[in-house]
């Protein structure tokens, strides 16, 4: 096929979206120069990363704490069975796929748990933050960081066949805490395990997020939607809730009083039960990376152990540990945080 005469050669691969008048060549040039951090690379995050890398966003940092399991493949579009067999962390596996999709984009995978000690480093140089997480603890942390730094971010959440999304432009729109003051306590809301989730529902919500991201990064701010979108793919319900008037109306601790409780570590735990996984993450930060060979030698008499450069897996007495070099561990076989802490202390050590 002949290249479009009106599209410069270096942008030829983006010709079809440049032809979309609302974006245009100026918008594409802005995309190529822009930087984004995607927090979480599960169902939402893989769809977000796929869209933005194909669209030519110049720099994409993908941050995720987790590794790939077979039950992820139903909806996490960048992963396949080979990644499961190789025990790859999600961020690393995503980076391999994304580089193959578009070598013009710089991809930076980061395998870590986002918390108040590292979030400013992870988002400080980005033009935009995208929510690919599965929990409100991290979202309130992102919200604090975004409002403090004055960076836009896009929130998205999905369960079952329904989802919600909104775009936060600090100083201009209500922030997440203006709209959702607190998240429901555990037990009051369905989890991935009880309610399940449909892949297409995640893809739709992430696609709404991605289009808002493209508008923001391309400099098309007048086109950004400022409502809370609620969508249910099962019954085709679609609601646009007006939230713009909440800005300044509610006494928001974050964007109103500028009290960043999550960013300052006053809110949020470091050990968390993982949604629908019968698993607990224990985060024990270490100054030095763990020595997997040493740990594997110590654990070998106690159960099955194997490791690669990214993780060590250890199974014993109905529990499976996945340990990361930074000291963090995901312990399967329990939802009990205290029990998980005990197991960590018993087998990994504090």
């Amino acid at each position: 096929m002949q290249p479009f005469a009106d599209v410069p050669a270096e942008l030829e691969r983006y010709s079809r979206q440049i032809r979309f008048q609302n974006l245009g060549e100026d918008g594409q040039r802005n995309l190529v120069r822009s930087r984004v951090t995607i927090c979480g690379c599960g169902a939402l995050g893989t769809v977000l990363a796929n869209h933005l890398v194909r669209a030519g966003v110049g720099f994409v940092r993908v941050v995720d704490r987790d590794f790939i399991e077979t039950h992820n493949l139903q909806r996490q579009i960048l992963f396949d069975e080979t990644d499961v067999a190789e025990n790859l962390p999600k961020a690393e596996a995503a980076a391999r796929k994304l580089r193959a999709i578009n070598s013009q984009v710089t991809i930076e995978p980061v395998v870590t748990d986002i918390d108040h000690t590292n979030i400013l480093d992870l988002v400080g140089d980005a033009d935009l933050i995208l929510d690919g997480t599965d929990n409100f603890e991290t979202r309130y942390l992102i919200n604090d960081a975004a409002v403090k730094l004055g960076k836009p971010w896009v929130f998205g959440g999905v369960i079952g066949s329904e989802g919600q999304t909104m775009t936060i432009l600090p100083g201009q729109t209500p922030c997440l805490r203006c709209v959702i003051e607190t998240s429901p306590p555990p037990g009051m809301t369905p989890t991935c395990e009880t309610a399940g989730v449909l892949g297409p529902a995640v893809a739709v919500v992430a696609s709404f997020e991605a289009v808002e991201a493209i508008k923001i990064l391309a400099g098309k701010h007048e086109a950004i939607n400022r409502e809370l979108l609620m969508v249910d793919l099962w019954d085709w319900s679609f609601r646009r809730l007006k939230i713009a008037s909440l800005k300044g109306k509610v006494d928001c601790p974050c964007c109103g009083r500028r009290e960043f409780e999550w960013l300052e570590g006053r809110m949020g735990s470091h050990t968390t039960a993982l949604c629908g996984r019968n698993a607990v993450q224990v985060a024990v930060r270490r100054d030095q990376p763990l020595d997997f060979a040493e740990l594997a030698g110590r654990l070998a008499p106690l159960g099955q152990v194997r490791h690669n450069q990214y993780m060590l897996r250890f199974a014993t007495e109905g529990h499976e540990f996945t340990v990361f070099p930074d000291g963090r561990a995901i312990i399967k076989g329990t939802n009990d945080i205290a029990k998980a802490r005990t197991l960590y202390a018993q087998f990994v050590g504090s």
Partner: protein
Amino acid sequence: MAKVSIPTPLRPSAGGQATVEAAGSTVGEVLADLTRQHPDLQKRLFAGEGQLHQYVNVFVNDEDIRFMDDLDTPVKETDEVGIIPAIAGG
């Protein structure tokens, strides 16, 4: 009577229904009638007497009641009262 839309997580407490007709001239009255019909919803919606949980957002025709008169916001027969959940997954 106003129509109250029930989010998926709360439907088991509302006899499985997606919408419930409830009587009242304010949001507070409509929700009181709703919880009379479905008592299990009381503790899912309210933290105490006349006080919604912070994580329960209520809209009348797509406007947040916090921007209007909260539970005193007037409701007409043709209005839809929406209970909007916070969706955590992803």
